């Protein structure tokens, strides 16, 4: 998100989900869309059926690669090489949109000079993607007006995540694929309300609507609005908070996240958690983090409360109460309100009064131009609205940057390749990436409690290439131990050519085989987002009971046949 704000002036999908089916080129990178965003994948597949060209860049052969014209199967963590080499081709072959660059951007010359050194042939050596494929992809992307880029955490969850985003943004800016339908740069948000949580100011540097906390004018406005003096220094972001837990951070409030399952290098985090003097969590189930909590407040799930979620395409949509929360559980806004007022009373501050989520939304919209035209009433009447929506008459915005980049000038950023922090070595010879599957969701406290999903995908597993498996005498379904410098977990081996040789992949969902005991917590230099996608690992077979027969029923990935080809 930081990369997008820097480059374009807004951190969100530039275009809309409904435009995907009309795109002529779709460049999907670092996104296993069919599993993480199934409905968006349906739109992509509809585009392909219509005749669109799909280019997938991913270290794994994901489901979407079977629909792709080309699959750029790059080595994990080498995205900058791939993207710079594509930019190299676009510049060298004169495929840039010179008018757009002249009118709407700044900083192009530095990028052109940098990417001149990133030839496709050199890129092939680093990324493993054939130079011809890089050329082909660059040409297809640059020469098609309706060409959109779609990415997710495969781009951002690296120590060079912001660089990856800059690399993509450079492609968008040099080709002018911005400010028109079915184009742009589109981060697909992983959770229902990632966009809304950011929009609402749940970040250490922004008040609602991306207004900086260290801007004196903004702070003064909020001090007036809220009637209290406010801190002017940006706070710690999540990854730093986690590293400072038990050190400078001594008390913590956590709402709706299982931090010791979801945060990287969880073993070390757990040790630091013991240094907290007080932890309160607000949850709907007892999760792993609850083991460290002093107080646990029972929250309500989406079907038990009112409010709004904002989706990936900046669309504010209603969440409506359908059933009552169980027992004494309360909607989270009620719980936070009660807590804030209890503290306010103790500190002699004026208590807050809201008669419901609509009033809370109205207060937020009042001080944030981007959402000023949106209200519960209006969403109830008209359906979802996409910000920016600055007045009650404003129809909302389907795609950003129409008639000029929001920031004024789109900013090119020259980037150099930096290897991931932990590379494979003789002791830990495999590269581990982690991710999500279709059948479970994050900490899986919800999905593993359903009958059906647990049946489809019952056990924790690790994908490993047949050659790597053979070298370790591992067969399909064997119990294996995956170990990194930070920890080890046991799970079932899924022998599969979907992963590259030398690479393994694990889902993050399983509490009994927490992938995040293994991951590194080194973060991106700008966002501090941790590198969930690359660390060094080793895998050994554990002599134990034989696997259950049906560990992976109907799995797309556990194919025994030859490597899936793509249409060239």
């Amino acid at each position, binding site marked *: 998100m930081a990369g997008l704000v820097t480059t374009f002036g807004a951190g969100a999908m530039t275009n809309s989900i409904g435009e995907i089916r009309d795109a002529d080129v779709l460049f999907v990178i670092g996104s296993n869309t069919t599993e993480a965003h199934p409905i968006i994948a349906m739109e992509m597949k509809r585009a392909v059926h219509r005749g669109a060209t799909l280019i997938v860049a991913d270290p794994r052969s994901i489901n979407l690669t079977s629909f792709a014209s080309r699959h750029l199967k790059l080595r994990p963590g080498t995205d900058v090489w791939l993207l710079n080499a594509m930019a190299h081709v676009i510049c060298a072959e004169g495929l840039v949109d010179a008018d757009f660059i002249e009118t709407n951007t700044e900083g192009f010359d530095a990028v052109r000079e940098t990417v001149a050194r990133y030839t496709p042939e050199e890129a092939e050596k680093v990324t493993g993607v054939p130079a011809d494929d890089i050329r082909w992809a660059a040409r297809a992307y640059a020469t098609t007006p309706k060409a959109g880029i779609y990415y997710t955490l495969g781009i951002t969850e690296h120590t060079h995540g912001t660089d990856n985003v800059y690399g993509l943004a450079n492609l968008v800016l040099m080709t002018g694929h911005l400010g028109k339908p079915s184009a742009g740069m589109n981060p697909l948000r992983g959770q229902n309300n990632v966009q809304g949580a950011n929009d609402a100011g749940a970040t250490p540097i922004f008040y609602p609507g991306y207004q900086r906390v260290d801007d004196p004018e903004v702070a003064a406005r909020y001090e007036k609005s809220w009637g209290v003096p406010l801190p002017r220094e940006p706070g710690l972001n999540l990854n730093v908070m986690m590293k400072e837990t038990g050190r400078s951070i001594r008390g913590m409030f956590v709402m*709706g996240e299982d931090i010791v399952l979801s945060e990287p290098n969880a073993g070390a985090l757990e040790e630091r958690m013991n240094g907290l003097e007080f932890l309160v969590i607000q949850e709907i189930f007892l999760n792993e983090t609850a083991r460290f909590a002093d107080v646990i407040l029972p929250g309500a799930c989406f079907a038990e409360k009112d409010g709004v979620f904002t989706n990936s395409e900046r669309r504010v949509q209603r969440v409506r*109460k359908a059933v009552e929360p169980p027992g004494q559980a309360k909607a989270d806004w009620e719980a936070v309100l009660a807590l804030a007022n209890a503290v306010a009373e103790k500190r002699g501050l004026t208590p807050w009064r809201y008669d419901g989520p609509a009033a809370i939304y109205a207060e937020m919209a009042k001080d944030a131009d981007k959402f000023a035209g949106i209200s519960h009433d209006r969403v109830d009447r008209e359906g979802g609205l996409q910000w920016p929506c600055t007045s009650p008459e404003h129809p909302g915005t389907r795609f950003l940057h129409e008639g000029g980049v929001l920031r004024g000038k789109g900013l090119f950023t020259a980037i150099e390749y930096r290897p991931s922090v932990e590379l494979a070595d003789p002791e830990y010879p495999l590269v581990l990436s982690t991710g999500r599957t279709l059948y479970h969701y994050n900490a899986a406290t919800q999905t593993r409690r359903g009958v059906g999903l647990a049946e489809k995908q019952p056990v924790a597993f690790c994908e490993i290439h047949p050659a790597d498996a053979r070298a370790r005498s591992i067969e399909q379904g064997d119990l294996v131990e995956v170990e990194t410098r930070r920890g080890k977990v046991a799970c079932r081996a899924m022998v599969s050519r979907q992963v590259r040789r030398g690479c393994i992949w694990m889902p993050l969902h399983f509490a009994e085989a927490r992938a995040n005991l293994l991951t590194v917590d080194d973060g991106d230099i700008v966002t501090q987002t941790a590198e969930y996608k690359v660390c060094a690992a080793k895998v050994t077979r554990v002599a134990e009971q034989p696997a259950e027969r049906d560990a992976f*029923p109907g799995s797309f990935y556990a194919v025994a046949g030859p490597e899936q080809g793509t249409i060239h």
Partner: protein
Amino acid sequence: MSSQNPKRVPEEASDPSLSVTLDGETVDARPGETILELAERHGKDIPTLCHDPRLAPAGACRSCLVEVEGSRRLIPSCATPVADGQVVTTANDRIARHQKVLLALYLADQPDFAARGETPGGAQACELHAMADAVGAPTDWPKMEPLRVGREDRNPYVQFFPEACILCARCTRYCAEIESVSAISLAGRGAETTIATADDVSLLDSSCELCGGCIDVCPTGAMTEKMPVTAGRRGHVEPEKVVRTTCNYCGVGCQMDLHVEPAANDGRGRIERVVSPEAGTTTNDGNLCVKGRFAYDFVDHEDRLTTPLIRAEDGSLREASWDEALARTVEGLMGVHERHGADALAFVSSSRCTMEENYLVQKMARAVFGTNNVHQCAAT
């Protein structure tokens, strides 16, 4: 794959250049649209069973036949493009007679649900029976024993009742054209034609991703939700309460309708089904995935937290009142605040919670505790 082009309705902006006479009235038609689309735009109510705006026309069910001047036979409006100078009639005695016969034949190939004391349809209502009622189709034609057979399938979500299937192939076309997994297909010949997976394996062992789109598009309830069937309920019951909301899983923001039984769970209410809104009305275009459509049983799970809990001296958790839990929380957080300062506190809010809740958490961190150490959990 190009043969599977999804039906594209031309955009409003495209130049209307064709002139068609529709039920005696001259109207502008858009090049590329079908007679059905033209008629629907002009408020005509042509019955359809196999039609879905997301799918390429199949012309399979014959319920949308209309009269076109110059054509001896009635023609399927869903699969016939408009043409300049075309003269179309959507309703007259001949068409009404055709509809009655067609639907009577369909009913003859269906079980006698009334005699069984059952309501037709699955968890969803039966469009076929409703349409037969609407056109006044005779219901007393001799019944034929359906020859279609199904398969044993241990999947937990999708139930197939072959007897109710009319082979409109909406489900198999949806599976191929929209979900694009082609897990099910028409199989067999003649009266034995049915819907099957390759080798009749369970959907769990097929390429099926359990999105349930086959249920959503089925006009008769032949494809239906298995959970009510497993619980011993068959046939459609009008939901007492329908709540439009937003899915709580990924960031697509699918709209969904929760069908709720308000009296269940001692008056707390229970979600009975999740249904996607009509195609073309929301971002998800009538689609849902396996999690959105089926993964809601966590809501009523016995593991839900129902009361505040406090860590006791011995390290165990004990139940507490809200007042006690809040007092303990204030003491805990303010204690850290007093001992180490505001920036020794950290607030993690949630990308899973509402915008209003995130707003309150950041406001609480900043205005009440005096720190900017607040971040939502999905920080990238």
